[in-house]
C-alpha cells in the first residue's frame, strides 16, 4: 500500500496541478484612498491550461465587484503569477472568497475534462 502511494507520488508528481495561495488572504490598504487590496499567487502546473478566471464572491456566493489587471489571467505552463485584487465600498465589507478557475479552450477534446477551482477565504 505504502509502496503504491510512493510510486504514485514519484510518477505523478505535480505534473498537472493548480495552486492558488494564500489560503486566508488579508485585505491591506492600497495606494488609492478607499481601496483595499489582497495579494494572491497563482501557479499553473496544468500543461493543457493557459488561462484562469479570477472571481470574488460574498458569503452566499453572490459575485462581488472587484478590479484586477486581468480577470482572465493568461499564464504559461509552470508559470507563477502575482495577482492583486482591488476592492472598494461594499466589496470590502462583503467579499469572502477569492477564486481562480481554470478556463478550458474549446479546442481541447479530451472526452472528460477536469476544470479546477480553488477559493481562498478572506478572514
Amino acid at each position, binding site marked *: 500500500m505504502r509502496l*503504491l*502511494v510512493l510510486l*504514485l*507520488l514519484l510518477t*505523478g508528481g*505535480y*505534473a*498537472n*496541478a*493548480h*495552486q*492558488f*495561495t*494564500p*489560503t*486566508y488572504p488579508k485585505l491591506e490598504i492600497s495606494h488609492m484612498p478607499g481601496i483595499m487590496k489582497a495579494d494572491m499567487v497563482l501557479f499553473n*502546473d*496544468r500543461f493543457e491550461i493557459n488561462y484562469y478566471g479570477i472571481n470574488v464572491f460574498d458569503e452566499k456566493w453572490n459575485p462581488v465587484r472587484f478590479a484586477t489587471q486581468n480577470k482572465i489571467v493568461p499564464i504559461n505552463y509552470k508559470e507563477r503569477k502575482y495577482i492583486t485584487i482591488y476592492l472598494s465600498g461594499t466589496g470590502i465589507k462583503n467579499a469572502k*472568497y477569492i477564486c481562480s478557475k481554470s478556463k*478550458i479552450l*474549446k479546442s*481541447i*477534446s*479530451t*472526452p*472528460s*475534462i*477536469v*476544470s*479546477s*477551482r*480553488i*477559493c*481562498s*477565504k478572506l478572514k
Partner: protein
Amino acid sequence: MKKLLLIPILAATANVAGASIPINGFIESKCVIQSDTPGMFGNPTVDKLSTKSADGGVMPIIRYDIVTASKYKAVITTPTDFSTSPNLSDSVEWTSTTVAGQMSDSEMSVFNSDKAIYNNGHTTEFDLVKAGSVWFNVTSEAEYGYGKAFPSGNYTALIVAECIAK
C-alpha cells in the same frame, strides 16, 4: 602592530560568514488540485456512455494534495451535460459517483464516511480533515433517450473539482 594582528582575525571571520549561506523555506497552507487521469467514455451499448472500466471506459481520477488539515473542503461536480457533442434531439440521463480511492493516510477514509452528496447526486463534498494526498475516483454515465442510439461524433463532458477554504 595591533592593526596587523586584526587582519587574520577578520579574515577568519569572513570565511566563517561566507560558509554559512542560509536557504529559507516556508510551507504554507494550501490545496493543490491535480488532474491525474483524464477520463474516457466507453460505449457498451448504443444508448450509453460510461467511464466505468467494465463498460470499456477510463475513470477520471483527480488528486488533491492537502498541506494542512481542516483548512479546505473538496467539492467535485460531475457532468450533467456534454460540453461538446453532436446534435442531440432527446434527453440524456446522467448518473455519477465520486469516492476517495487511493489515499496517503488510512485515516483519510473518513472522507468517504462523512461526505455530503447533493445537486441530485452530481455534487459531492468532502471535508478535508486530514493532511496528505487523496485520489478521487469519478464515474459518470450518460443514457440517451429510451434505448436510443447516441449519434456518432465526439463527446466531451466537464468535471469541476473545487477546493474551498473553510
